[in-house]
């Protein structure tokens, strides 16, 4: 057990437990807060994976923006916060079974791949991944078009969300 692995396992447990709490807790606000915890764990994983930019963006975007949005939405639809008994559907065992089946299938497939327990190669010396990422995002030979498309998507979503949520003024 190296320190890396210890940190990974700790965050993996954090992620999985929080994720489970997200899907089974009765209180929606708690679910949203558990989601924050799970996403924070994912940010830690990104940091372990040397993707520092993604780690920080994960915190800014997911925790800072999306989670806040969730909490807001939960609060705006406040009537639903009263606990009406279970928040899970009656036939919850079918999804559970499906989940377990898919997990088993995926695990079987993953572990059956050759060289799946490889370890990460060293990042080539002199490569500044942050700079490389920035260049890749804006250079025409890289991903400038998807990047721009994503920005257009965000704008469209922004306008659409405002339009849908504001509603008609009588």
């Amino acid at each position, binding site marked *: 057990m190296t*320190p890396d692995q210890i940190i990974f396992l700790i965050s993996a447990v954090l992620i999985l437990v929080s994720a489970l709490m997200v899907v089974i807790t009765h*209180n929606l*606000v*708690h679910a949203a*807060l558990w989601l*924050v915890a799970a996403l924070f764990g994912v940010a830690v994983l990104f940091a372990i994976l040397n993707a*520092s*930019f993604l*780690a*920080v*963006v994960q*915190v*800014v975007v997911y*925790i*800072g*923006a999306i*989670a*806040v949005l969730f*909490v*807001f939405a939960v*609060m705006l639809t406040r009537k639903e916060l009263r606990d009406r008994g279970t928040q899970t559907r009656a036939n919850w065992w079918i999804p559970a079974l499906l989940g377990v089946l898919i997990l088993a299938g995926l695990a079987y497939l993953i572990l059956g791949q050759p060289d799946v327990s490889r370890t990460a190669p060293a990042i080539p010396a002199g490569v*500044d991944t*942050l700079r490389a990422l920035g260049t890749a995002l804006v250079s025409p030979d890289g991903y400038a078009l998807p990047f721009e498309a994503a920005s257009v998507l965000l704008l469209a979503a922004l306008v659409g969300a405002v339009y849908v949520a504001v509603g008609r003024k009588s």
Partner: protein
Amino acid sequence: MNFWNDPINFIADWLRGLLTSRGMTTGLSTVILFFIGIVVLIIFAMMLDIFLVWVERKVVARFQDRLGPNRIGPFGLIQPFADIIKLVIKEDITPAGADKLVYNMAPVLAMASVILLWAILPLASKIYGVDLNVAVLYLVAAGALGTLSIIMAGWSSNNKYALLGAFRMVANMISYEVPMVVTLLIPTILANTMSVKGITDAQHSVWFVILSPLGMMIFLISAIAELGRAPFDLNEAESEIVAGFHIEYTGMKFGLFYAGELLHAFTFGGFVAMLYFGGYGVFGLEKFLPFLQAPLVSALIFLAKAMVGYWVIMWVKYSMPRIRIDHLLAFNWKFLTPLSLVVLCVTAIASKLLSGSPTWLVAMVMFLANVVIAWLTIEILRGVGRRQRKVEEHLTSPSSPLVRHGSE
């Protein structure tokens, strides 16, 4: 390497030697050293915080023509400790309807979001927590945690004032995050890096406040809004919602919020100093006076600059009235955000076009560009104001149908 030139590594090496000589593995000792470093940093920040309580109380007193704490200790310096004792021995209340876990976690998270910032604050060229290559974004990320803590506090208190305060605060913080991020990008562009040390070092010859005075002002304003201090302190507007999101908190939990706010303000003073006022540098004087490069001296310089920033924030807080919530949001979305985007665009284009030019030329052109933007902004504002006044005059003039109708 000696203590004078590199105190942190000097102590660290000594401790590492101490630990490994007792048969500990290098890995474990490194982990332990990191923990010690973190604890020391936090303790330093908290001690500073206690001092800040005194500073804040003293300064507010002077602004209000009072003396401030002056009974306990010289100049009242021991007063904060008395405050702490008072807070600690108060009854610790958790309201009956509150969501206990969330309620108790919120103040901790609030404090943590501030302490997290200290990890990237470069006190001197050799005294800093980490030199992240995404430090500028990290600053925003820590702010996001602060937002979260306020939501948690407001929601879990099960109090409508707390919830209202939280809503206001979150609207405020999310809105002002936009100009703040934009103005954070200005030093990033100018220094070509997001690392705080890189940004500090890039200001050796000329501080970024010269290159982008508007950027500095916008950053300062949005930082004050981000802190939720006057004139943006709607979250705790006592005349409307009593105390806002921390209405139900007592004792040390309240103390954490309070201390967190003070330390946050000081930290942002530090960030203003670091991003726009050359950090621990002194006009490039350190080239001629080597003793200024000594880490402890430059740390003092940095803290002094941060204190100046903190003082400006206090100055604003104690001399401005609170503004209305719709004005607050309109000010951000209709004025600050467009202006910051314009400044960013101009800075980006100018720095690209002028890359390779001598420093004095860059500084002059950038400064003039900022002056021109400021002038244009003032002109536009004047035009808008004139139009609004005309509309108002029309509405209130005796010939207006509204007025006539009202008088009948």
